């Protein structure tokens, strides 16, 4: 794949030139070349083995302040040129948008190598090793007699090389890798099943959790749910485990994008500079953390990644913007352009100082939220209502597992009502956070 890299760059640059020739005022072309390996094993046997390479090209043209997009997995030059010509023609049919246009060329450049996004060790892994990792993980989990069935274990790896070329002179390229290992399990008999999983995803093979550690966590997470009860409907403190803080942060992300703000699709519109949470809440988007999944040298506008404080000790400091949303809101781009929208880099809640154990110990009565089911998130209002699985806490100790209940509340009230933030932040995914205790949410049950 490496030897094909210059071809990708040539392709992107030549299409940018061609777009200008077709009458585009501005144009941007991205090309990526990916290689994917995925093995699913179950009950000690390979279930599915996938290996493939694929390429995709995306382009944006702007003519008379009108924008058109196109993409293709067919990299035949004839097809691509036709798409460019069509895009220019389609742009002419749209309406002018005073905010349309590519981002200006930035003087700043982020050194992609320093971000450590690429691990040659992943490329060097042979199929047998990768299959072996999945088999070992599942075998370790199935050793535990409480585990009654397996969804199987998966090892996946990816290598992606991306090029972005723009009429403003920007040309950037970088390569990134990814590997992941996980297992899903069931415990209990058919009519009383509980399930959970654990996985580790990293850019570097050496950072991946061991098969034994993954198996142990998956087993623990599954069996602790056995023999659940349904509780009475009540308002109680809710402790979010880090996996749950992650979706809460994902929901918050959707509410702080510049796009949602100008579309009035978020309850946080008009709240810049205002207090939206208590002092324990500091939320950061950082595309520059070496080796992490959400790090990139530049975004899809060709702007360098940066660190942006979104919420500082409860005060909303920044909306996350691509160039377009920023122009519309008269703000600065935060380097969050992702395709035609706004996406997170590493978006996380800053950790606190207290241990998760102490958070539980300090809770007289409440629910530790361990899994959710269903969507039930409304960014326009901030309302949350989801199916929930958890552990009931009484007098600072875990009493019994809970299932078939719902949790509901409002993100605004949750941010105001955060009582404790744990010290256990880990970057398992680009959007993440530590254990968090929320003063009160409604748990609906019997």
């Amino acid at each position, binding site marked *: 794949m490496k030897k094909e890299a210059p071809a990708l760059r040539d392709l992107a640059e030549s299409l940018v030139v061609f777009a200008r020739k077709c009458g585009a005022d501005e144009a941007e072309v991205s090309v990526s070349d990916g290689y994917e390996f995925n093995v699913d094993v179950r009950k000690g046997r390979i279930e599915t083995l996938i290996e493939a390479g694929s390429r995709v090209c995306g382009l944006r043209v702007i003519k008379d302040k009108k924008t058109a997009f196109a993409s293709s997995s067919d990299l035949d030059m004839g097809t691509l040129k036709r798409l460019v010509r069509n895009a220019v023609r*389609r742009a002419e049919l749209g309406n002018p948008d005073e905010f349309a246009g590519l981002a200006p060329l930035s003087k700043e450049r982020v050194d992609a190598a320093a971000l450590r996004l690429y691990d040659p060790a992943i490329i060097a892994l042979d199929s047998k090793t990768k299959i072996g990792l999945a088999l070992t993980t599942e075998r370790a989990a199935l050793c535990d007699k409480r585990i009654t069935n397996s969804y199987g274990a998966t090892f996946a790896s990816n290598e992606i090389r991306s090029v972005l070329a723009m009429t403003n002179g920007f040309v950037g390229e970088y390569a990134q890798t990814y590997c992941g290992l996980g297992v899903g399990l069931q415990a209990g008999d058919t009519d009383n099943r509980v*399930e959970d999983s654990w996985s580790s995803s990293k850019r570097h093979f050496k950072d991946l959790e061991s098969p034994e550690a993954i198996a142990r966590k998956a087993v623990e997470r599954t069996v602790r749910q056995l023999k659940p009860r349904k509780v009475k409907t009540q308002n109680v403190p809710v402790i979010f485990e880090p996996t749950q803080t992650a979706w809460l942060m994902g929901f918050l992300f959707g509410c702080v994008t510049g796009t949602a703000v100008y579309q009035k699709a978020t309850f946080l519109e008009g709240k810049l500079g205002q207090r939206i949470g208590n002092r324990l809440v500091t939320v950061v988007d950082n595309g520059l953390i070496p080796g992490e999944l959400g790090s990139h040298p530049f975004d899809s506008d060709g702007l360098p990644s940066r660190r942006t404080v979104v919420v500082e000790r409860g005060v909303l400091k920044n909306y996350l913007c691509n160039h377009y949303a920023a122009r519309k809101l008269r703000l600065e781009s935060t380097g969050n352009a992702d395709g035609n929208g706004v996406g997170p880099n590493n978006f996380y809640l800053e950790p606190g100082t207290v241990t998760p154990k102490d958070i539980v110990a300090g809770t007289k009565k409440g629910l530790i939220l361990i899994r959710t089911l269903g*969507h039930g998130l409304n960014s326009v209002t901030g309302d949350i209502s*989801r199916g929930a699985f958890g552990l009931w806490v009484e007098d600072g100790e875990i009493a019994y597992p809970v299932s078939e209940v*719902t949790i509901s509340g409002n993100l605004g009230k949750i941010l105001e009502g955060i009582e404790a933030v744990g010290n256990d932040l880990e970057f398992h995914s680009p959007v993440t956070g530590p254990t968090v205790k929320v003063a009160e949410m409604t748990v609906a049950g019997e």
Partner: protein
Amino acid sequence: MHDKKLPRPTTKRDSPNGNAVPLGRSLNSPLPYVDHFGLSPADLRGVLQLALASGGDFAEVFMEYRTYDFINMEEDIIKETAEAVSIGLGVRVIHGDRTGFGYTNDLSLDKVRKAAQTAAAIARSKAAGAPAPVLRDRTRTSSRYIVRRPAHRASLRAKMALVREAYAAAQGFDKRIAKVKAHYSDSLKHICIANSEGLLVRDTRPMVKLVCVAISEKDGKRESGYWGGGGRVGMEYFRDVLTPRRIGEEAAREAVLLLGAANAPAGEMPIVLAPGHSGVLIHEAVGHLLEADFSRKKTSVFWNKMGKRVGSPLVTIYDDPTIPSFRGSYNIDDEGTTPRKTLLIEKGVVRGLLQDKLSSRLMRGRLTGHGRRQDYSCAPIPRMANTYIAAGDDAPEDILRSVKKGFYVASLSGGQVEDSGKFTFSVSLGYLIEDGKLTAPVKQATLIGTNIDILNKIDRVGSDLEFGLQTGTCSKEGQDVPVTDGCPTLRIEKMTVGGTS
């Protein structure tokens, strides 16, 4: 966990042109198939032969060429348009219960052969498989996609006019509408499948969708409404079945109605589900867990329930991919099987599973034509198409009248299930029922239950079967496919509502 993410579909009880079950099983002549792959039957046979070289039991080549058009209107302008082309080919080899899969979007014969070799490696025997037979073309000469004016031949101007009409209708509906978004998309997929059973079959699948989101605002409070439609139809749909104007108005109507809505109640109570998109309940509670792979792996709570009672005798459930022009319908599934209407639950008893080739081979079950894949880069798995609960005998107004105090589900925004049978669905608009009448509108809440428990608690089934909006998408194992659900008015004796008051 298996997801259904509907971008906030809604169903109105009194909708004059709601999606009633089409009575006719009319068939159309198929849309022309255009070959973009340049592989002759002899080439394909050679690829299949190579795929079986390590002794696989079954090999298959799936080719796909898809074009896609998209228009986005917001902030009062047609803000952007997009066009996409995707081409690719996937080769699958089954060896016992193992699957090898390779794909490529470079269709040169050497890359295709490489994909075949990748897939072949799953079988490791020294002996080559049986020679691939001569391929016989089984392409149908009729189609379930009723299309008079194909979207791919319509002008961009005509499509933009639809978007503008929906947008203007939402914006002009009420002073309290603060923002509107309208999206149009259409796609045309040419697929060709060849396999080592000698099958060669093609299909040309259209899809059209127009949706509108309206955001209302009053006294600093905001709500949103959603409506949309489409299916495997042509442009005439937006004149004859569902007009852009109505899509815009219904989105705005819901957004405005929600401004006055109270917080949902919390706790267990009797539930009445509106006909139409309440079918999400059946999709989650039953459909997913009767997909054959979950039974084969014994992860589904239903795996040992075939022939057993799991619900009230009032409950009969089908999945039918053959309904003309529905979003979830197809002429052939993504393995080339002709689909059939499949009985899943008969009067509360489990009668069938949704099968794909792999599971039916291993379970010796009959193929039902439910092997689907998102695209060429994915191996097929058993999926739903159009899932619905059959109409019962009760008049819908009698059902409502029978509830003294309860919760009425008017519109839904999706749901999720896990293999234990625990499932949720999210209500975007509900009403309180007091003394048999709908009273205060109520906003967002998630309902949770366990499928067998809830199926047993369905104690009234209406005669008014309707299907939900033709905009739904179902997610399973990272693959998205279009689906439709339907149901008549239903009463559930009690279920947990996740509100706050």
